[in-house]
Structures are given as C-alpha cells and as structure tokens.
C-alpha cells in the first residue's frame, strides 16, 4: 500500500505543479535539505477521510509560494502579498489531496476538510519530529518543497497488479 501511495502521490504532485504553475519538479533525495540561509516557510495542511483517513501537509519557502501564486495568476514577475501566497498554498493542498484521494480510489467517497496554511520558520518545520507515513521531497526551480502524508486506516482495496 505504501508503495502505491508513494507512486500516486509523486505523479499527482508532478501533474499539479506542472499544470498550475508550469513548474517541473526534481527529486531532492540527493541534495542537502538545509537552506543556505534561514527563510520563512509556509505550512499548508488538509485532512481527508474515506478508505484512508489522515492528513496531508505541504511545506515550501514563502518566497517560492509568492512566485508560484504570481505564476498561477498570470502576473508575470509581479510580487503578490503574503496573504495571497497563503491562500494559494491552501488551494494547492486542496488540489493535491483531492486528486490523490480520487486516484487512490475513484469509487469511494472522500471527505476533505477545509485546508489551512500559515507562515512558519524552517526550525519549526524541522521540529515536527512525528513519524510520517510518507515524506516526499522535491526541488521546484531550486527551492525545496516537502509533502508529508499520514494516515491511520487502511481499508482501501488494492487493485490487482496487471500481468
């Protein structure tokens, strides 16, 4: 199940970033996580309930979120306010979680909570030492983006592997 969730999550994140922001993601596995200078981050999260119940969180630097909001709204390089970037991250969580849940089980009914997002420090993000079911790290145009996924139930019907 973990393997399936990881595969679907990677595909969904790549598809959403590509469609919404025309941004292609690179894997962060081989690169250092620490930013060169402490920068503020946005922490967005959303809960989901269905065959799996849990929480999806996204972390990205505030400046990257502002650039993405600007790209999303077609404002070229115009800087958008922090509030707009936070609103965009909430929508991003909603879109990623909605697509992820649907692709995991299209026949099931999933309930998504209203997304939330706030500004946090890099330290605060690092201090979240809970064990996460799945953590995916990417680079979006040079900036780190992290997705954390936790779930508590596993009643999702696994599709049989195709021969």
């Amino acid at each position, binding site marked *: 199940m973990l393997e399936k969730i990881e595969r679907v999550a990677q595909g969904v994140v790549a598809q959403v970033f590509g469609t919404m922001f025309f941004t292609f993601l690179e894997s962060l596995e081989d690169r250092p996580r620490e930013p060169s200078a402490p920068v503020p981050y946005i922490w967005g999260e959303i809960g989901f309930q269905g065959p799996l119940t849990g929480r999806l969180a996204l972390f990205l630097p505030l400046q990257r979120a502002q650039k993405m*909001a600007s790209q999303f709204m077609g404002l070229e390089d115009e800087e958008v306010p922090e509030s707009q970037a936070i609103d965009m991250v909430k929508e991003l969580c909603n879109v990623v979680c909605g697509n992820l849940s649907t692709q995991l*089980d299209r026949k099931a*009914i999933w309930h*998504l909570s209203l997304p939330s997002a706030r500004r946090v420090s890099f330290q605060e993000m690092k201090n979240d030492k809970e064990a996460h079911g799945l953590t995916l790290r990417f680079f979006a145009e040079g900036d780190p983006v992290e997705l954390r996924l936790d779930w508590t139930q596993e009643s999702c019907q696994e599709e049989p592997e195709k021969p």
Partner: protein
Amino acid sequence: MAYNVLIVDDSQTMRKVIRKTVMLSGFDLGECWEAGNGQEALQVVQTQWIDLILADLNMPVMNGLEMLRELRKDALNGHIPVVFITTEGSEQRLEEARALGIQGYVQKPFYPETIRDVLTRVMEVSGA
C-alpha cells in the same frame, strides 16, 4: 451574446484565476460576479441576472451541493446552469451532483481549453 457568470469558490486566488481563464478562453463573458460560499452565491442570484454558475464543491458555510439543492428549489432561478470546478472526482459524488442537475464538471487543476469547451457546450445545450 455575452453571458453573466457567477464564480463561487472560498479561495480568492482561485476565483481570480477562474475569472481570468474564462476571459482568456474566448468565452463570451459579460458581467462576472464572485461569491466565497454557497450562501453568498444564493444572495447574488437573488439580486443579479446570472446566466451561469461556476462553483467549487468543498466550501465553508454552505458547500456546492447544498447550494445546488437550494438553487433548484427557487422557481425563478432554479434553471440556471451550474458547472462544478473542483478537486473532487469520485464517481459517487459526481453522481449525486448529476442527480441534482449539474450541467458540467471540470476537475482542478484545469487547462483553459477545458473550461472553454465545457462552458461553450453548456450554454449551447441550455439554449441561452
């Protein structure tokens, strides 16, 4: 003929993006109204001439399905075509929405052409 459109989404960013996408898509847009949830949308419908509603499903206060149920009870405005633009794609949820009479559905993230094609088809079918 230009169509007056009401965009219903709790994300101000998404409302702006949908508005811009509709404008750029070549769809004949007249006046464009916005609402942050279903309840606000029903208030707009009472006071403005609306030809088409583009709504999210997952919203605070009143969600898209609740809004649709209330709208269909309205003798004067119950006929207004509704298109859901949402992240949700489960078959059961869409079946529920179809049973309440949605005219179209677009899953986020979307391409402008998808929006244009759905809106054009909906307005042709509704004969507006």
